[in-house]
């Protein structure tokens, strides 16, 4: 992970994180960005369940292009509020989207066109304030529509269940904006719970959502998404989200939290050790539920 982040994500980069919403959030990548002291990042994502809040609190971020930033089960993001309301630790510019319009921006990028049309955001102040949303007359009828400008992040970090060494990636569960996000981005870092043989991937080509030729780096990082869930690998650590909510309310508490869980740990392995065996055991899969096979034979 250190190497992938060092090579592919410079300060000032536009980075897509959290493409699968509350599932498979690449916390380990975000924490490595904090440890490597990145600055002036533009964070892109539909919703962010505390990772953006942590990176904002750590001072890595100068701009956020998102639909929702906070703590999904607990509420507000305290670091976001401090940054936007009091410029602590630094000012952050908010470019407010809705989930759909953010997804359409990435879809336009993935399809190689300058925009996508929609009816959403009409009459809202998102439309008034976000320069990447613009009203225009439909070229095929009398309606007016909203053009969502294409988004092309510099890097997308996608957490997935499994990938092969070339980066051909199997992803399942709710996909959010991961597929378009990977294609729209100039580089893709895949963080996988498991690295598998190419034969596993090609045994089910319909589950390959990111072809390897789009991928710049593949990182094998078990538990890399904790405290968010990875279907089939571990559940959501609800208590961790509530604890973060309390421990980020005051600035000094957040700084202590950051030292304890990010700056004070060398890498994900150390993080998982600190989490403790019984915590990770309690989050592990209790009952497997395997997909019915599909036959690709002839």
């Amino acid at each position, binding site marked *: 992970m250190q190497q992938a982040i060092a090579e592919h994500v410079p300060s000032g980069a536009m980075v897509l994180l959290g493409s699968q919403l509350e599932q498979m959030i690449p916390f380990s990548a975000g924490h490595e960005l904090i440890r490597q002291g990145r600055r002036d990042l533009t964070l892109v994502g539909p919703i962010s369940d505390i990772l953006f809040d942590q990176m904002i609190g750590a001072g890595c971020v100068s701009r956020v292009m998102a639909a929702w930033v906070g703590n999904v089960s607990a509420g507000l993001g305290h670091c976001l509020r401090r940054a936007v309301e009091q410029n602590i630790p630094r000012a952050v510019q908010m470019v407010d989207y809705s*989930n759909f319009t953010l997804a359409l921006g990435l879809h336009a990028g993935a399809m190689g066109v300058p925009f996508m049309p929609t009816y959403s955001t009409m*009459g809202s102040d998102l439309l008034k304030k976000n320069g990447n949303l613009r009203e225009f007359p439909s070229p095929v009828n009398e309606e007016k529509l909203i053009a969502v400008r294409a988004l092309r992040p510099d890097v997308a970090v996608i957490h997935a269940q499994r990938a092969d060494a070339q980066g051909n990636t199997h992803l399942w569960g*709710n996909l959010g904006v991961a597929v378009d996000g990977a294609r729209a981005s100039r580089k893709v870092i895949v963080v996988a719970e498991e690295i598998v043989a190419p034969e596993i991937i090609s045994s089910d080509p319909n589950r390959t959502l990111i072809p390897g030729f789009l991928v710049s780096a593949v990182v094998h990082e078990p538990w890399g998404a904790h405290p968010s869930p990875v279907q089939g690998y571990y559940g959501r650590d609800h208590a961790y989200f509530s604890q973060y909510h309390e421990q980020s309310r005051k600035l000094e508490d957040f700084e202590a939290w950051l030292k304890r869980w990010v700056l004070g740990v060398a890498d994900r392995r150390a993080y998982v050790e600190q989490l403790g065996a019984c915590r990770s055991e309690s989050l592990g899969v209790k009952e497997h539920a395997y997909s019915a096979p599909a036959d690709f034979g002839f």
Partner: protein
Amino acid sequence: MPARPEPSGLGELMVAAASREIRDGELVFVGMRLPMLAFVVAKRTHAPGAIGLYENGIIRETPAAELLYTMADPPNLLGATFCGQMLDVMGLLQQGRVDVGFLGAAEVDRFGNLNTTWGHREGKITRLPGSGGACDIACLSRRTVVLLEHDRKRLVERVAHITSPGFGSGDGWRRAQGLPARSGPSAVITTMGVLRFTSDGEAFLASIHPGVRVEDVLSRTDWTLRVADDLTETSAPTAAELAVMREIDPDRFWTKQR
């Protein structure tokens, strides 16, 4: 399932009221938080044929077996009918196929416009989480149901920022913006009652919760709220509704909050 259910709390009353906004067989865009529980209650009581759409890309014909803290919790994926991309479900929403969508809000105004982006406290601007899918649902679903706490700071004459459009400034406004003909706010479920909307898009008090007085509702609303001639009392959760809530959410994670 307790024989004599303990008296229901306000949260349970709101969840029950929300679940009744879902009709059997409808396509429901299920929002964050309380609505996730309301959908399960509807599915397991009066609306077994309802289908749930979640903005992260999930479609469910069966309710999740466990309490959901977020819509991407593993129990919401296991046994789902469909898992795909956000655009898959948003496309169905934009096609006009979704009957009802649920939203939370920090502020709602006289015409049902919602603000979840910029708040204010002691004259200072405060930052809220933002739209999520709320603006999309408010623009594109046929009916929209809002849940929030009843309080002068939250039920305001005019929201400072329209995150999710309601009826704007009233009659004809949505069409003038270009929004779909069959769309707009249907109900606002608060901690004191249920507001509905006149044909010209203004909110009025349609029912009050048990033990709440109309004058208290009016005094805790920032504008002169109209009251229905046929004002009713919000009916309390049935034993069946409570049984589902307490089975799924025994610690009252969602229903205790208010």
